[in-house]
């Protein structure tokens, strides 16, 4: 079964700093912008929801047709990890977010990384994709 999963890290001011299609579904051209649109729109909901709970993991904040948006709000400079998915594996998604958050913190610890700039580390990319295979 193919699944759709689009992972994105959005920094302050809604600037995407990392994006990856981690689903198993074959890549479609129009999917790229559609996923971005859905995630972008979901930010509106996240914005409201983030302050109503102390949990970092907000599951299924928004949905579009059969695609669900889950968000993990980090405490660091209002960075949000967003996942667009069609599976219903909340525990897996939560673990995925926690591990990616850890990776992201490691990126932040790099003195050469300017917070809020694009994450270009290939190591990070392979790790994230590996985590996606494991948990999603």
């Amino acid at each position, binding site marked *: 079964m193919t699944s759709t999963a689009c992972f994105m890290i959005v920094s302050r001011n*809604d*600037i*995407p700093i990392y994006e990856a299609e981690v689903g198993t579904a074959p890549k479609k*051209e129009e999917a*790229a*912008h559609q*996923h*971005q*649109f*859905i995630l*972008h*729109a*979901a*930010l*509106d*909901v996240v914005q409201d929801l983030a302050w109503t709970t102390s949990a970092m993991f907000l599951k299924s904040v928004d949905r579009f047709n059969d695609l669900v948006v889950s968000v993990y709000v980090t405490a660091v400079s209002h960075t949000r990890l967003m996942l667009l998915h069609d599976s219903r594996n909340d525990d897996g998604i939560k673990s995925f977010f926690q591990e990616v958050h850890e990776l992201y913190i490691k990126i932040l610890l790099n003195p050469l990384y300017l917070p809020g700039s694009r994450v270009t580390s290939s190591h990070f990319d392979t790790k994230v994709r590996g985590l996606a295979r494991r948990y999603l």
Partner: protein
Amino acid sequence: MSSNDSNKICRTPVTELTRSSFLHHRIMADPAHFAFRKMILDEITPVVMVLPTPLVEQGCQKNGLSFVQMLTPFCVFNNIDVPVRTASDQPYRLQKFKLRMFYGSDIRQPNIEVTKERLEKVIADAGKGEDSDLYLDPSPIETMATSSEPEFVPAWFQYFNKELVRSVSFSDHEAFDHPVACLLVVSSSDEDPINKFVDLFNTNQLPPLLSDGAMDPKIPKYFILVHDNQTGSLERATKILAEMRNTFGSNDCRLLCINSSQDQLIDREPNPWDPYGSNASSGQNLGCLLNHEDVDELKDFVRNLSSKDIIPNMEQRIRVLNQQVSATRKGFRNQIKNLWWRKGKEDTPEVQSVNMYTFNSIESQIRVLGDYAFMLRDYELASSNYRLLSTDYKLDKAWKRYAGVQEMMGLTYFMLNQSKKDAEYCMENAFSTYLRIGTSGKGNATRCGLWWVEMLKTSGQYKDAASVYFRIPGDEPLHSAVMLEQASYCYLLAKPPMLRKYGFHLILSGDLYKKCDQIKHAIRAYRNALSVFKGTTWSHIHDHVHFQIGKWYAFLGRFDVAMKHMLEILSCSHQSKTMQELYMRDFFQILQKTGKTYSISRLQLPIVNISSLSVVSEDHRTYGSLAAASVKESVWQSLEEEMVPSLSNAKTTWLDLQSKLLPNKLKQSNICVAGEALKVEISFRNPLQLSIPISNVTLMCEYSANEALPDANSSSEIQGDEDGKIATGSESSSDTSLFTSSEVDITLAGGETTVAQLSVIPRKEGLLRVTGVSWKLSDSMIGFYTFDADLIKKKISKQKRKAKQDANKLEFLVIKSLPRLEGVIHNLPETVYAGNLHRLSLELRNSSEISVKNLKMKISHPRFLNIGNPEALDVNFPSCLEKKESCAHKDADLDATKLSETVFHFPKDTIIHKETPFFLPLWFRAATPGNMSLYLTIYYEIDDKSTAMRFRTLRTHHMLEVLPSLDVSFFISPCSSRLQEYVVRMDVINRTSLRNFKLHQLSSVGNEWQISLIESIEHIFPSGNLEPGQALSCFLKLRNVKTTETEMDVWLGSGSSEAILDTKRAPLVNFHHYERLHQKTSHQENQSTVDFMLISRMEETETVPSDVPTPPQIFSHHACHCSVSTKRPIWWLLDGPRVNHCNFSNSFCETKLKMTIHNSSCFVVSVRINTFDSPPGGSPSGNKVGWHDMSTPPSDDTKKLVSLESVPPFIWSGSSTTRVKLEPNSATEISLLVTTFAPGTYDLSNYTLNWNILDSNSSREKEGVCYGRPFYLTILREE
């Protein structure tokens, strides 16, 4: 109710039942609330069925109106003030009232297709109206969010929604669309009007609602006679009316007179029919034949109809129905009965016939009661009945009816203003139930959704409203598009505004509009979305929006606007290749269709890498190539140090001159010379994966005549300025020829970065500023990039070498044309084997009229490049190297090069004129393997004092790759048998992988050393060819001689056909000189070293075409400072007879030996000769005390013993120790005597020489021991 109270009610928008709700309502009376209330009151009002005869219509059409249209304006009452009593006899007054008039033929479910077409027309019409503002920039989102709704929400949405709601009217499951009365209209000109009346209410033509039993066909009928005053007299009409009254009863008959205005057409302002006018008759003056009396009559008629007939009738009906319902359903007993009865029906199949609930079923009656109560604003009654009904329908699983009741319940709750939550719950319930029943409920679901949305909007729940819009079913993508667009506006109106949702839903709606070919709507949606997505960093969103808008504008033919958007997507590097191809294809198509030429600042295709910008301007420094220009300035400066007038000197000499010509403030700026190219390098990067050709890459320049010039030297420099004035005069006249820029075409493959080399040649004196670079992406798309002064400044601060150039690095002062030398080195190979010797020639050209003189040259690596004698140009290479007898001037040659050291002065009379190139021979020898950069700088002075510069330099830079060829090493050891002689081992290895070498000769350089082969070369190296990888060792004898004419060269070649080359002539001697300098180490003594030069030839390869006579490749390898000295300063030689015959007459034999000791050091040495009687090998450790080597294994002792036994003893006679003192470079002889006692062969090596350097302060070893070398003496018995 008192009149005072009623007045108050008049002021409120609606009339209320109770005081409490009225008060409550006043608080809630915000505009949105009011709007929805009004909408509900407009929609849910009593319907009156109209059945006219054709003649009635004819009469009405004279006014451009149908009968219903004629009445419609008067069907709305704002202050009808009718007293009504509720079912429980509570009086209240209706103020607002409205009747809906429909022809009997219209009272049916609207045709789906017709409705669809009508809705599409609404949208299309709305689209047409958009033209005007479609091309403007979208207004910023901030102002939109604050402005009130109607300003940016398209007005046609309301109209569209209304149409959508009406598309499901006259359904049989709800009663508020059922006619409450029937108007039978007959014209006075009709024949037999009474029968006409009877015929009109013919059951065959009645609407399905009445005929199929959904409602009671016995509705109140009113008989109206319409009299057209133009067609007949009033008498006939009154007669008919009287007849009617007789037949149908006096109360229900009316007479209406129309078209009373006989002659003049009546113009009304405002015309009451305008809002209701039929589509086709827009030009006609509606109601032109109706005079005031007619209009008043119409008004009175409808008013009386409402207040006297319809409302009391409805009230009456409510009473009757209420009693029936109470009788059958109210009370505990009835409820139990009902429940039981319905339980029993549960078994019946769910697919019930549509007409299960006929008009006389109790359910339908309750529904009618509820709807009537609702229409008469008795919401309490309506609500209780709906509640009652909904449980029934639910139990019956009559879902559509259930949903309809729920819907009405929701509306009632809303109108009652009691429980918002209940109202919303009912609406949601109704909505989802309608959705659940499938296609038949979709239209109702839409209506219900729209009402629900409006309800949510009134309480400010825009977010929920948007999600309801989203849920409204869209069989038609077009309808969905409209719903989505409305949803998006809800997100915008939400508090706080949800802009991203707004944008997203606009995009969704735009896509649907596009699907339905409503391009203009699609563009509007996207354009509004753009206000959200403008400048977004979400790359795919950004590209998608701009690409789609661009494409659609292009579709509409607005290519100029389309281009504006298409330009945004040019740097789509994150897209996949197919998308990039698509984008580019559409971009170029649109560009082509536009037919305009665009020049875009900072066009993103390709990307200009501004930090790569490098400018090469030539002032007094000129460069032979761009590579030379990129070499660090410090390299050149260190090279030119000695040649160019020193900096301080230069300031005083030529700046003095310059200051006359140049104003002070321009001294800082860069200088370039008219007619000479200013070179700029800048790199372009292609962000795409496709290859893009760009053409006409050129520099943009500004030229200004030097205006500052006259100001600066106004007073003092008048006499020298004639030139300048003339120049400025001519400049203004010919602007075109001020400068010429080069144009370059490049093709950038995907992701490639290419450096474009551009140049501009100023033609006139003045001020030239390089402002930017421009290029053509296609014929009509020009991109340009203006060099920002700030950027350049930053770059300079980073790069130290440019630091001395000022901030206005791109501003150049153009000075008068100057001579400029151009130099070419001919024959310089790019790849060469180490040691290869070449003759090159340097060609210098001067294209200017002014000649140059006083040339000097300096070479960075004299080891590689040497300046030849100018006469050597014509001589034949390599035969010129051959040894000749006339060696008169060779020393002079050598002196010249050595004396001048680094700077080469050209002959004094060298002047280079125009068109006469100057040639200078150069010798080239690849000294060491590796990559080599050679720098050459030539200094020249200009033979014209009036120019701004007195001298210039030409800098050239050459890159070579030197491959390894032969490795030559020498190993020198003293010869044991001769004094002052050495054995030299020469190891040669061919390091090349392909080429053969032929050894030619080995020479020792200088006059001191004579070398000769120990064995003949044919013997040791018969082939004469050194194959790749082959090594050769050969031994040579080296002798120190002081005479001048010695054999210094050894022929190593196989044949003797070729002449030996002269190593004392240029260039070999020159190169050797530099090799010596290079190989020199810190502590070398001149005396005891020898320099070798191995000359070889490379075998010509077969691949070289034979018809080209290739000169033989000469190689020279130099090994300098090969030390001959050993650590010890002394040489000795034991000499004497090797064989001695003795008769042993006196039982022993004495042999006289002679030892020659030579002191080769420059100090006085004392030598002590010790002789031992012990056999050789077991020599004691001499005079060493303290620590000494004990590592000799004990096995040595046994060996010693053996040798002791095998060798007969001998003794040294004479003194066992002799001490001599030797002066530097002197020799002495010592006699030694050895006594043997038996014939045999004796090894006379058991002696030591202990030497000790006296009076030496140097740190080197002061003393040492030399052990004796084997000397075999054979004693034979003489017979």
